[in-house]
């Protein structure tokens, strides 16, 4: 029946969307049994999260520093340098931390997940599991997916903290903004809603990035070129989806 459908780009997209939805459904059904093996999930949180810490911390530091520099330049024109802490915190918590962390996650952990699963597929490891009556969705896909979903908010939190530190470093230490104003204005202006917005975004991005990475790896053509293409697709699809979802979520929170 499907062979009769024209192979237009639109048809292919809809078909792929359906395949991803079916894959997600099957994987979510295996998440329960996977949770019974916490060691597998902890290992994946370590792989996806702890191993991304250096790049996340470095990026957070520089993003915070740039943000403070630009913010100071802008606010100085209106004589509102004291609001630098608020501006930096809101920009980081609501927008930059979740988005940049997710983009870095897609590039660092997402590609790693895709290529790892793709190579497992190419070397018959997934087939071997099936032959041992072990569902690879339970043993391979679900723990990696859950590990990514859990790691993303943690990495986002680290990014925000280091980013604020970088903002303070430039704003207070370098540009001479009053330390008390920087922190007190931030404290009075940033509410729980702003933090929740960032957390929700990071969870949604973690879900999307991990799903794409695991799906692409699981369905990679079992060749060197196939795994390479799947890895590229992971980065491209994740990046576009992160920005699209960011707009949708921002619109929902405003």
């Amino acid at each position, binding site marked *: 029946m499907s062979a009769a459908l024209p192979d237009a780009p639109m048809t292919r997209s809809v078909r792929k969307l359906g395949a991803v939805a079916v894959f997600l459904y099957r994987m979510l059904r295996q998440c329960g049994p996977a949770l019974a093996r916490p060691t597998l999930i902890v290992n994946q949180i370590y792989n996806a999260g702890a191993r991304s810490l250096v790049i996340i911390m470095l990026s957070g530091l520089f993003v915070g520093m740039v943000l403070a520099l630009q913010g100071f330049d802008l606010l100085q024109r209106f004589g509102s340098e004291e609001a630098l802490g608020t501006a930096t915190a809101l920009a980081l918590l609501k927008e930059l931390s979740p988005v940049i962390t997710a983009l870095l996650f897609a590039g660092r952990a997402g590609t790693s997940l895709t290529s790892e699963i793709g*190579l*497992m597929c190419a*070397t*018959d*490891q997934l*087939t*071997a*599991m*099936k*032959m*041992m*009556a*072990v*569902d690879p969705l339970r*043993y391979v896909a679900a723990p990696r997916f859950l590990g990514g979903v859990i790691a993303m908010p943690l990495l986002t939190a680290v990014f925000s903290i280091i980013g604020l530190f970088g903002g303070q470093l430039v704003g207070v230490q370098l540009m001479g903004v009053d330390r008390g104003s920087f922190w007190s204005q931030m404290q009075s202006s940033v509410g729980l809603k702003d933090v929740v917005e960032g957390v929700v975004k990071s969870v949604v991005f973690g879900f999307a990035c991990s799903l794409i990475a695991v799906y692409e790896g699981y369905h990679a053509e079992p060749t060197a070129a196939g795994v390479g293409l799947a890895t590229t697709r992971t980065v491209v699809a994740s990046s576009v989806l992160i920005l699209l979802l960011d707009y949708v979520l921002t619109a929902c929170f405003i």
Partner: protein
Amino acid sequence: MRPPWKLRQPDGALRGYGVTGADQPAGAAAAARDEVLIDVRGVGYAIDGHDVFDGLDLSVRRGRITGIMGPSGTGKTTLLRLITAQIAPDRGQVRVWGRDLATLRSGEVFAMRKRMGMLFQNGALLTDLDVFENVAFPLREHTDLPEPLLRTLVLTKLQAVGLRGAAELAPAELSGGMARRVALARAIVMDPEVLIYDEPFVGLDPISRGMIVRLIRQMNEALGITSIVVSHDVPELAMIAHDSYLLSGGRVVAAGSPQELRDSSLAVVRQFMQGSAEGPVPFHYPAPDYTQALLSVEDP
């Protein structure tokens, strides 16, 4: 109350470790040996419109070593995928233990696979586990064996393949032959009733090759395991196989004991058994005239 390390089989019977066909009464064992375990009837299968099988018929009897031979590209590995329900035939029927694989649900397929072991061409060891854990993997997934018993079982299987000393090595530290032997230990750790070998002799040194040949024969004789060996290594297969099938052109072109195949007057059988380039199976892939291709300035 059944011991936790026993598996419940799909037919409801309990089967503990070490309980095999060899333990059955002599008469029952003899009768069981004639039983057809795997029956492939009129199977057709195509990949991208190209027929791999067209009316394939063969059967595997319990407790015997069945060799599947044939030139490269004749679908030997595809046949194994059909038998293990990794793919479904376009037409025809594959029956395993009397059940049509097309009628099995996912859970039933997994239950069937617990009774099978498969040795992959490249070993297919799990790269994030060491040798010991690779062999222990099926036991950890399907049983609640106490750790000392699990350890004993794993070490027993590793000893059988001569790699007890390599238990702590990572798969990346193993040679191709060693990886194949670890994979064999993993394939037999659940005491399967059927063992499937996909090209078990490829790339092995003579010592490992001889050892694999002996292991296949020993497991068949001592444990009564039904074995299916896909290979194009005629001498090795002739040493161990009770029944042989030669595949070519999508169907079985000859069947019988290795001796019967050797004595066959069919051109395709003689060409394969003697390893001759001349015969009905072309060595060269279809191509334009050789001289013209060499003299032509265009791309081949």
